[in-house]
């Protein structure tokens, strides 16, 4: 899928914490092996039991729009042709407490609502430094 904000728009620099999110092609969440706590964004220590036995696991790839906002002021030259665009906070099914930042795509900017069910879709890109294939999680209306 082409990118919501254009194929030339800012890409993430890959790190050990964000590589699963941006390359796995699934909604991949960090869980604590000791206490089961889910956390997003990932970190090097579990925020619940404070241990460091953490691993990544894919969840179903569905979620709910907790909030959204239409952005009208383009902060980057590449955004001028994309405003208004929708930024959103999505709670992720199967990962209690985890809210992710993203866009709601494949619908109009006026077709997003708080409480709306969404499912993950993935934008394709290539990391310019490592030439790793990126699959950037996005969300589209599920109904």
């Amino acid at each position: 899928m082409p990118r919501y904000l254009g194929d030339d728009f800012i890409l993430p620099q890959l790190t050990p914490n964000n590589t699963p999110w941006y390359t796995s092609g699934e909604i991949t969440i960090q869980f604590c092996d000791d206490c089961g706590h889910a956390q997003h964004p990932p970190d090097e220590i579990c925020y619940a039991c404070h241990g460091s036995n953490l691993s990544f696991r894919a969840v179903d790839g569905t979620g709910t729009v907790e909030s959204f906002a239409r952005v009208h002021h383009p902060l980057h030259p590449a955004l001028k042709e994309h405003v208004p665009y929708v930024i959103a906070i999505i709670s992720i099914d199967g990962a209690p407490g985890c809210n992710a930042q993203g866009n709601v795509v494949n619908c109009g900017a006026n077709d997003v609502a708080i409480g709306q069910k969404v499912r993950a879709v993935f934008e394709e890109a290539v990391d310019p430094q490592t030439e790793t294939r990126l699959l950037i999680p996005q969300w589209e209306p599920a109904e």
Partner: protein
Amino acid sequence: MHGEAVVVGVGESTYYKHGGSPDTEFQLACTAIRNAVADAGLELSDVDGLISYMDYRNSPLRLADALGLGDLKWSATPWAGGGNNSSATMHLADAAVSAGHAEVVVCFRALAQGQFQRLGSGAGLMGGTAPEGLAWGLPYGLMTPAQECALQTARWMHDHGVSQEALASVSLACYANAQLNPRAVRHGRPLTREDYHDSRWIVEPFHLFDCCMENDGAAAIVVTTPERAKDLDATAVPILATAQAKGPEIGIYAFQERWFPSMYYEGVAEQIWNRSGHKPADVDVVQMYENFTGPVLMALCEMGYCEPADVEAFVGDGRLEGPDAAVPFNTSGGNIAEAYIHGLEMVVEAVRQVRGDSTCQVKDVELSLAVGGPGYAPGSAVLFGPAL
């Protein structure tokens, strides 16, 4: 109760529109510090401590030599956040002075946004990739505090049935009060409710007039001991209570489910009211850091002023406007209409209200509250007064 440290001087540079300062940021800082120290009736060589914000560019070493300060014994910045550093500087100054680590501490903030760009402009974000920390939002076009606070505000408005009119009321109060303040960048530029609604969207639910300005300028505050203050002509304004607070599991991003939506002020409220023995209704005048209007409403509720369901009536009908307001609020015009010196100018105004020399002076002020920037933990606040 505290009261072991007192404010004896406040000062500022001229406040300019973004890019309008003929002076550099460092020169602006020096001007504000000189003015505040002179206001206290002290000499620059009396200053033995400096406190600023966490990302400051003006080194204490450089300032000390440029200004001819005394031998520095204390330098500090708050631990995180952003605009919350405003009231947090008073927390650090209170700690330093009360414990005797330094006797004359200057808190300052200087900004020359023409010289140094800032986040609201997308500065530094134009490269092709987003580094760790920014990589969770930037690829989605989630780039600024306005957008982050819009997401918090939109959900809170949805949950509590708050309309756009409540946001407008905050901005209108700042503009109305700035018309009384010749220092204000928006002095002589009154705003009507119609102007507000006609202004362009930045990110819904924020119009242009829901957002703080971007300015060049500097502000400074001098804190010392009550004993030292006795020798000065300046009115001494006690720091009655001050606090920073962070609850559990806020995370490093402001969207964790346990707190979303929140401005992180419940812990600040608990400490401020417990330490002072007061409650919101006792406070004569409040300055609330407006990065954006929505977060002000949320922080007002979290500080205990009213319930979210009642906030529209609480701030409506001009109840925040002018020296005789039901709830005297942002009496200098605040970040929205006086100048955006990251809220330190609002702490200055809170002090002036106790001294009785505000341009929008509330009668017989004994308790004056300044609440720091909302939306980024830890929150902060400082309660001043009554004057010694």
